[in-house]
């Protein structure tokens, strides 16, 4: 069992995503601390991947910026170790299956355990393939986070019943990115999830405004925001921590 549950004990959880090393790890550290101070309950740290097939243009660009800056999985583990001296809120990694597989899953999860990473989100590892890493995740107490999509339909119950940590409810079809409107019937999806598990649900994909966050938080236990934050980092670079902090405060306030 990880420490993820504690993220859902402070009202509705606000869960920001950022890509590690965008524009550099020093700035990532400042952003993480700023977000934690301004009310983030759990932070998703992206380990960049060269070909992020589930991401829209904004996060794709962040992955490229980070990789061209020379960030690697090893440097990110060192970075998290340093972060853990003062950052106490739950942290999870979001990356792609090949990053974990190539590092050696056992070595990867052991280092997650050692640096206090509570979970791993892998958008290209569906229910059918989770045995690739699940036994190792359980061995090291790292939650393998399950995703449920607008198209999951008859699969929702099956996925929910075996979920650990929290469930990532994908609010929209397509890839990550800001959307003006979310049309998926998230309420019905969450209802089926609730019938099958007590693991908390957080909704992500497409959310950017306090109004959207407030609306989505009525249905679930938390709200995930990625592209809207990454876009600010792309725009302000090293000066982004203050901007992102202010945004996080506003979003957390909207869902309280």
């Amino acid at each position, binding site marked *: 069992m990880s420490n993820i549950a504690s993220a859902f004990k402070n009202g509705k959880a606000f869960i920001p995503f950022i890509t590690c090393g965008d524009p550099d790890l020093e700035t990532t550290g400042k952003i993480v601390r700023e977000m934690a101070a301004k009310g983030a309950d759990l932070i998703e740290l992206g380990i960049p991947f060269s070909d992020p097939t589930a991401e829209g243009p904004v996060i794709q660009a962040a992955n490229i910026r980070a990789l061209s800056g020379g960030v690697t999985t090893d440097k990110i583990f060192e970075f998290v170790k340093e972060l853990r001296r003062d950052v106490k809120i739950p942290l999870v990694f979001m990356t792609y299956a*090949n990053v974990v*597989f190539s590092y050696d899953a056992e070595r990867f999860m052991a280092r997650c355990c050692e640096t206090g990473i509570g979970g791993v989100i892998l958008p*290209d590892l569906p229910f059918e*393939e989770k045995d690739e890493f699940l036994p190792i995740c359980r061995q090291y107490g790292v939650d393998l986070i399950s995703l449920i999509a607008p*198209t999951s339909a008859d699969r929702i119950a099956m*996925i929910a019943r075996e979920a650990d940590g929290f469930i990532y409810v994908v609010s929209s*079809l397509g890839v990550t990115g800001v959307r003006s409107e979310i049309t998926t019937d998230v309420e019905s999806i969450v209802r089926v999830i609730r019938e099958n598990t007590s693991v908390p649900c957080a909704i992500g994909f497409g959310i950017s405004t306090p109004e959207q966050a407030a609306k989505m938080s009525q249905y679930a236990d938390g709200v995930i925001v990625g592209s809207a934050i990454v876009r600010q980092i792309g725009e302000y670079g090293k000066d982004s921590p203050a901007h992102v902090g202010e945004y996080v405060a506003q979003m957390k306030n909207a869902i309280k």
Partner: protein
Amino acid sequence: MADKKGRFGVHGGQYIPETLMNAVIELEKEYEYYKNDPEFIRELDDLLKKYAGRPSLLYYAEKLTNTLGGAKIYLKREDLNHTGSHKINNVLGQALLAKKMGKTRLIAETGAGQHGVATATAAALLGMECVVFMGEEDTKRQALNVYRMRLLGATVVPVTSGTATLKDAVSEAMREWTSRIDDTHYCLGSVMGPHPFPTIVRDFQAVISKEAREQILEYEGRLPDAVIACVGGGSNAIGSFYNFIGDESVRLIGCEAAGRGIDTFETAATVNTGRLGIFHGMKSYFCQDEYGQIAPVYSISAGLDYPGVGPEHAYLHDIGRAEYVPITDDEAVNAFEFLSRTEGIIPAIESAHAIAYAMKLAPTMDKDKIIIVTVSGRGDKDCAAIARYRGEDIYE
């Protein structure tokens, strides 16, 4: 050969976003039904014969054989198919299947443009909408094919992300599919991606070796000693190998694009230089760095310029049933010119990789031995690029 979860040994699988899972499950179910449906089989057979021009010729290249002075060389002429390559075999099957499934729109990735042209062709014929994703770099290398696709009524989307080549076109087509599934079928062009694609594409391409096996038995009264085909993702190669896999005396040889050489970074020879990984929906061999970042690959051939290989090839390599050899740009270009001059057949630069290996292998074999080389496509599309390679600028 694939088991229930679409595995070929450790390779294959379904490493895709949850959003696509019900789509591939439905595709598998429908395919399992239609592949045994007499009406579907008859319709596809009819299209292959009356529209695509099958069976393709198995041609005895006598002059090539005599010039090289070794084994007898037969060419399986997939270049003579309608649209100019083997891609049409798979596309007609998938488009017909998609239509039966009630889909009205086809999306596809393309490298050299041959699969894009074939998809646009099938979409035109069957009255479906078509969108083709193509790396921006490739739209420049293969401008003629871009025009052909547009002429056929397709929309061509140049992909600028990553290296702007085939792998990025696949990523973009996958992204598009996650955003629009209801009316859209992703007509994947090679034996790659998540299950059931590697199996479906292989089954539709297996017609190559089904015919070749019958033809060689008719002409020579015996099986060949070697079958040679080029491998990018590996669809014409698996199609050429499939019906010979059980015949242990037949060597199966896949020719990978070595680009400027397998000891350089400018290569796309996945089996020779890559290692096991998970990407584009499958576990297989990929060119990647120590942290699993997919490597930017290079080949003169846009169709072989891909950092992975289909899972069934990875498996055939693991069990030693097939061999995978690297062929450089230089060797391929020489073979492109050599076949043109000796036989009056201009092969696609992709297929020229297979010809290049036959040129090495044939002279080492006795004259009573037989080699079948698959000419996967015609080379008209490559003439401008090869001219540039030789320092001559021509206007298309």
